[in-house]
């Protein structure tokens, strides 16, 4: 378990979200960012990328976020990598249900690009506390 947050993998099918999230995380946050457009791609590339944290969109075609999360947990190197869900609808009870699926937290869409990195840092700090 690494204590520093440098590499973030984003699993997101929307190209526009991919672009703005990359800007938010790389230019604003200074992270190294890898991007996958589907759950399938994530399964193929995640181990090689070795992320410290995974941002996972909930609603994706073919394999949705929760299904992808379950599959990622089957890969030994990623068994303990923290995952944050990104989704449009976030209520208190839903955050709890996503956490029960194994996510450490939920970030709601639409997000503010200027604050995404600090939000992630906060979640990361809480996760390691």
């Amino acid at each position, binding site marked *: 378990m690494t204590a520093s947050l440098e590499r973030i993998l984003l699993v997101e099918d929307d190209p526009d979200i991919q*672009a703005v999230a990359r800007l938010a995380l790389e230019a604003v946050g200074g992270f190294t960012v890898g991007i996958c457009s589907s759950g399938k791609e994530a399964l193929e590339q995640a181990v090689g990328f070795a992320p410290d944290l995974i941002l996972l969109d909930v609603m994706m075609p073919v394999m949705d976020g929760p299904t992808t999360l379950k599959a990622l947990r089957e890969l030994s190197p990623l068994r303990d990598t923290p995952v944050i869900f990104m989704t449009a609808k976030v209520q208190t009870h839903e955050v709890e249900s996503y956490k029960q699926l194994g996510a450490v937290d939920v970030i709601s869409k639409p997000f503010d690009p200027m604050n995404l990195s600090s939000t992630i840092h906060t979640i990361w700090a809480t996760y390691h506390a």
Partner: protein
Amino acid sequence: MPSSPATPTQIQQQMQALRAAYAEKIGERVLQIEQSWDRLVKDDWNLETLRTLHRMVHSLAGSGATFGFTYLGTIARTLEILLTSILETGNPPIALQRIQVHALLASLRQSIHEPEQNLPELTAFIPSQSPLPNRGDSHLIYLVDDDPELAEDLALQIGYFGYDVVRYHNSTDLKEAVLQQLPAAILTDITFSEGDSAGIEMISALRKQLGSNMPPVVFMSLREDLTARLEAARAGGKAYFTKPVSVPSLVDKLDELTRAHPQEAYRVLIVDDESHLAVYYSLILQRTGMVTQVVTDPFDLIPVMSEFNPDLILMDVYMPHCSGLELGTVIRQQPAYVGIPIVFLSTETDLNKQLDAMNLGGGDEFLTKPIQPDHLIMAVYSRAQRARTLRSLMATDSLTGLLNHTTTKEQLVQETLRAERSQSSLAFAMLDLDHFKSVNDTYGHATGDRVIKSLSRLLQQRLRRTDTIGRYGGEEFAVILPDTDGATACKIMNDIRQRFAQIRQQSEDEEFSATFSCGIAVYPTFSDVGSLKTAADKALYRAKHQGRNRVVLAEK
């Protein structure tokens, strides 16, 4: 190795580039959504196409606001919710749902051309603030009269009501003073050694120089002819008093002219389980100067209401766990909230259903989502304004404008709770006019009413904005002084008592003076509302029996 963070300027430029790229594609995305919906409606209904449609709308909802298209994102979000409910039933949509989708698609198409930064200037809907907001805090009066004795006496009498009166010997001196510092009002005679209408001419000249910054002017004169009155009105005079001037009437007019109630911001409570929509409405209303509070969990509503004390509630109709209509009913069941305006928000476009919703849920208005920002602002603003005016009227005494008996008691409960929470003190004073029955019997009830008004006016002038003044009974007043200890409260009330005794009350035949007695009790010496009132009442009684015209502090 992470790349070095870009400079803020570079980030800004990249963000703008992304936004531009996003903007270019919106039209195509919306078109695809429309075409997908058309296929569903015209061809055989199938779940795969519906899921594709839902995903496209979801994507738009999840990204619009990120790129500055808040309104578009909100409409997409609303549409997504609707499509989700259609998906969950597994059946083709009913006619009502089709109409709703159609309306939302039309709004979506329309919103393509309205990115956030081009929204209409929302503040245009709110009346502009007073051009001289500082005027309300000023009690400075410039007085010029060629009769020094009269001027001195008038200055003294007006001063008892909290005005700072500066006297000038002639119009030239007055003009110089006004150009250096604006008073709250100008009191001037008409006739001077320079001429029968010199005062009017001076005011006209001053008005030309100052324009809209000209303070209100009150003329006084021995002249009662129409010519003088006309000239005074043309010079912009707000009032015209013939000598001898009635001080109570003059002070009434000065109060009216100098009173500024800095408009406290309207407070709007927004109840919507979709935090995105709630934040969206919140931002719109905040931009017009309102204060907002968002509740996304309906079960938080009651505690938030008592803490936030809203002027109006903006509430979604369709929420899980309990609907807006049910919440509205619960709100109306509580006496404290019977009068609060509730504005419902829903995608419901059927007028009959809207009327049913207002009837069932105790709503005052029904707004169909998605709502245009200016429509939302106007609906909220006008209802909040009317509600506050009504609340004020119901809370005040008609003769004096002070709080009435009921509201004063409620305020005492509130302030006592606040003192308890903040571990501070509070003084409660009860005042009773001395020999008031004989005033009425001797001079008539009209004069008695004027005495009551003069005391209420003096209290308003001399007490702080944070203090509460109530008319408790016929000739009885109550004052709540938060964050005030006993010694300070006694000093304040004694000062007012002495000033009140100096006021020359006027009846038709003669002048007389009036006095009041006062009892004060302090929290936490008396630790609850009941004992506070009892102690203040007993202290007042002792003040009466010790000879009246005095202030007595209650002792444990």
